[in-house]
């Protein structure tokens, strides 16, 4: 009963916030779900856009910072990319390395090329936090073969 009495104010607050959110919804048109022009090659948004969207150009370093954009603007990513594109690397459970699936696309920036089993001992020691986002709570069944 005590638990219920604690949860009630929270539920009421959530309902109030939700109601306020609905009432306060912006009436602006939603962004398109697909890019109006098909993007065929590596995307250089700055070729067409001169405003803030030019920052989304997929330059050589884009792979290292794409997570920041995705965390705020997922719908923008989905303008050009299918969900499966993200799932190739960001998986709950995966057995084939992306670099093994796409050996015919060596120009793509992909992690763990070649014998990464050996190198991960070094990279993981120097910066274990770099492994954690992908393997900390998921996609680590292969890791468990050794890390029991």
């Amino acid at each position, binding site marked *: 009963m005590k638990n219920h009495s604690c949860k009630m104010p929270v539920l009421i607050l959530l309902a109030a916030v939700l109601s306020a959110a609905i009432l306060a919804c912006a009436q602006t*048109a939603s962004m398109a779900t697909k890019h109006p022009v098909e993007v065929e090659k590596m995307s250089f948004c700055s070729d067409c856009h001169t405003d803030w969207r030019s920052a989304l150009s997929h330059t050589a370093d884009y792979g290292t910072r794409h997570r920041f*954009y995705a965390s705020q603007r997922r719908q923008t990513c989905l303008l050009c990319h299918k969900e499966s594109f993200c799932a190739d690397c960001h998986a709950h459970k995966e057995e*084939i390395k992306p670099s093994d*699936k796409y050996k015919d696309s060596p120009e793509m920036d992909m992690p763990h090329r070649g014998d990464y089993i050996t190198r991960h001992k070094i990279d993981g020691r120097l910066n274990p936090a770099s492994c954690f986002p992908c393997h900390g709570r998921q996609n680590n069944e292969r890791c468990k073969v050794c890390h029991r």
Partner: protein
Amino acid sequence: MRILRLALPVFAMLLPCLSTVASAIDLTGQSATYLQSRQEFDSTRLMPLYEYLNFSAEDLGSKNLSFHFGGWYRYDLRNESFGTKSTGDLQYAYLGYRAATANAFLDLGRVVVNQGGAIEQVDGASAGTDLKYGFGISAFGGVPVETAFDTRTGDSVYGGRISHEVSGIYSIGVSYLRERNDKTDFRKEEGLDLWFRPFDKVELLGTTLYNATTSAVARNAYNLILGSFSILTLRTEFTQIQYKDFFTSTTLSAFQLQPGGPVDPNDKLTTLGEEASLAFGAVAFSADYKKYHYLIEGNADSYGGRLAYTGPSGVGVGATAHRMDGQTDKLRYYEYRAYAYKTFGKTEVAIDLLTVTYDAEINGVKNAYSASLAGGYALTPALKVGADIEYAKNPFFDKDVRGLVKLVYNFDTAHAAQGGK
């Protein structure tokens, strides 16, 4: 899993028939079948057969309604990979609603959540909308999709994000996440995400993660991007990670840091890096340097560069060189890579060479290398067959030969151009 086992192969076989139906119901997607040949450390030869299937069905009675599916299934034709003859995974499967106004959305099913500091996979719901005056709100909840270490009974995860944005100038959000395992707290996190572009050619972006269980900042990760100035773009990277607050909830023993272990749980890592990128038309060059500073361990560095040429009509070459310079010889190596690819009509060929030189021998090996050759042929605009072979020598294999054959069918020929390759 049983559903996946039955549904994926059947659906893959039906795909050619569905292509005509696809135009009626706006179905786009891809079936990719891979047959891999590789060997285990004990020389056991494995031949896993994989079927990856993804599709999106849009305009389901309404332009706002869609369904998205991605999953894979593996069956071993010879021996057992990772201790099982067969397995699979449901990557995502959700019904999505997109409103015509306010970017409002509702996803139901196995959804991918990207809400500021909360980046999760959830069996449940994710929703959000723009509000007036630049504000935005989103929330999610359900059962976490993570590596199981016990049952999913009593497991839950929920959270949300409130944001404010001035278009083209900044976007800032605060997020909250709470995860429970067996009805007890497993994770409580708060996040701050920032994108700030005060002037043209100046951009600051990053996140701060606060561990509400240990009441401490677990990680700061920020990038400052300057440019591009004609051909030059500069990126400065700063991260700070407090190990004891960052590695607090994991499903893998490697991250359960113990005092006296190879990584001290009381250590704190600060990295500061710089990357300069130059673009001369089809030629791109970049150089990078990163300093690793530890509270307890000694310092480390990594640095390198890469050069790439992307020519017209499907031709390209590239090369990279990197040095990882850790505290001891055991934590140092050089990595060099060179690749080239070319498309001849319906045929494409790619070659990739990678070599790693370790400062200290590992299993008696200092120089490791791998060489791969890949080829593909477009049987039709929608159907492509490909194969590759890789030869390698490394600390675990004197001679490692592995191969892969694949058949890729796109329901929609535009798919490949949209990131599906």
